[in-house]
C-alpha cells in the first residue's frame, strides 16, 4: 500500500473479486423465483398437405399460439428464446422434432403474447409418414440470464392429428 501502483492493483483485484461474488449471488437468487409459465396452441387450419416430388411429406399449418412466459423473467434475465416444435414418432426415428416457429423475447412486457401465424419454418417429414399421424406440439424455451447458467424447459401439448389424405 506504499505506492500509487500498488494501491491501484489491490483495489482492482479486490473490486473484481467482489464483482464476481455479486454476479454469483444474482445467479443464485434465480433459484427462488416462482415459475408458472402457461401455453396453448390451436391448429386453426391445415393450409395444404402434400407429398413432395421426391417423396417427403410436407404440411402447412396455421397456428394460434397463446403463451404467458412472464414468470420466467427475473431481474437476472437477459432474454428468453422460445420455439414451437412438432414432435412425433415414426418407425425410423423414435423422436422427430420439427421446429415450426420461434421468437426471441427480450422483455417481460412482451412475454405474454397471442399470435396467429402459419408455420415459420417448413414442416417436412423424412419420408411419407405424416398421413393420419398423431403428434405433439411442444413449446420449448431457453432462459438466458445476464450472469450464470442458461436453462431450458418445455410444455408438451398433445392430441393433434394430421388428416388422413393429402389436400
Amino acid at each position: 500500500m506504499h505506492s500509487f501502483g500498488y494501491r491501484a492493483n489491490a483495489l482492482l483485484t479486490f473490486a473484481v473479486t467482489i464483482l464476481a461474488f455479486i454476479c454469483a449471488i444474482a445467479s443464485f437468487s434465480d433459484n427462488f423465483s416462482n415459475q408458472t409459465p402457461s401455453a396453448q396452441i390451436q391448429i386453426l387450419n391445415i393450409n395444404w398437405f402434400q407429398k413432395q416430388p421426391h417423396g417427403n411429406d410436407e404440411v402447412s399449418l396455421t397456428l394460434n399460439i397463446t403463451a404467458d412466459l412472464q414468470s420466467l423473467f427475473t431481474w437476472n434475465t437477459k432474454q428468453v428464446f422460445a420455439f414451437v416444435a412438432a414432435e412425433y414418432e415414426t418407425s425410423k426415428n423414435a423422436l422427430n422434432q420439427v421446429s415450426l416457429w420461434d421468437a426471441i423475447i427480450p422483455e417481460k412486457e412482451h412475454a405474454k403474447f397471442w399470435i396467429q401465424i402459419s408455420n415459420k419454418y417448413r414442416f417436412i417429414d423424412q419420408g411419407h409418414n405424416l398421413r393420419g399421424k398423431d403428434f405433439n406440439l411442444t413449446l420449448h424455451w431457453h432462459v438466458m440470464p445476464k450472469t450464470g447458467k442458461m436453462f431450458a424447459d418445455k410444455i408438451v401439448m398433445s392430441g393433434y392429428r394430421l388428416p388422413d389424405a393429402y389436400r
Partner: protein
Amino acid sequence: MDWQGQKLVEQLMQILLVISGVVAVVVGYTTESFRTMMLIYAGGVVLTTLITIPNWPFYNRHPLKWLDPSEAEKHPKPQVVVAPKKKFSKK
C-alpha cells in the same frame, strides 16, 4: 504515505468495497434491476478509488521521527552493541 496510513487505506478499501457490494445487491434485488445493482457497485468502486488511491494528507499524520545525525553521535555505538554480546556470552 506513512505506516499507519497504509494500514488505514487497506482497511478503508476493503470495507468500502464490501459495503458497496452489499448495498448494490440489496438495492438491485429489491428493485429487481440488474442495471441498478451494477451502477451502484460501479459508483462504489469509483468512490473507493478516489478515497484510497491518491496520497491524501490524512494518510500522513504519523510520520516516522528519524533521529537527527547529531543526536545519534551523542550516544556512542558500543552501548547498542553490548546487549547482543551479553546474550551471546550467556549462551
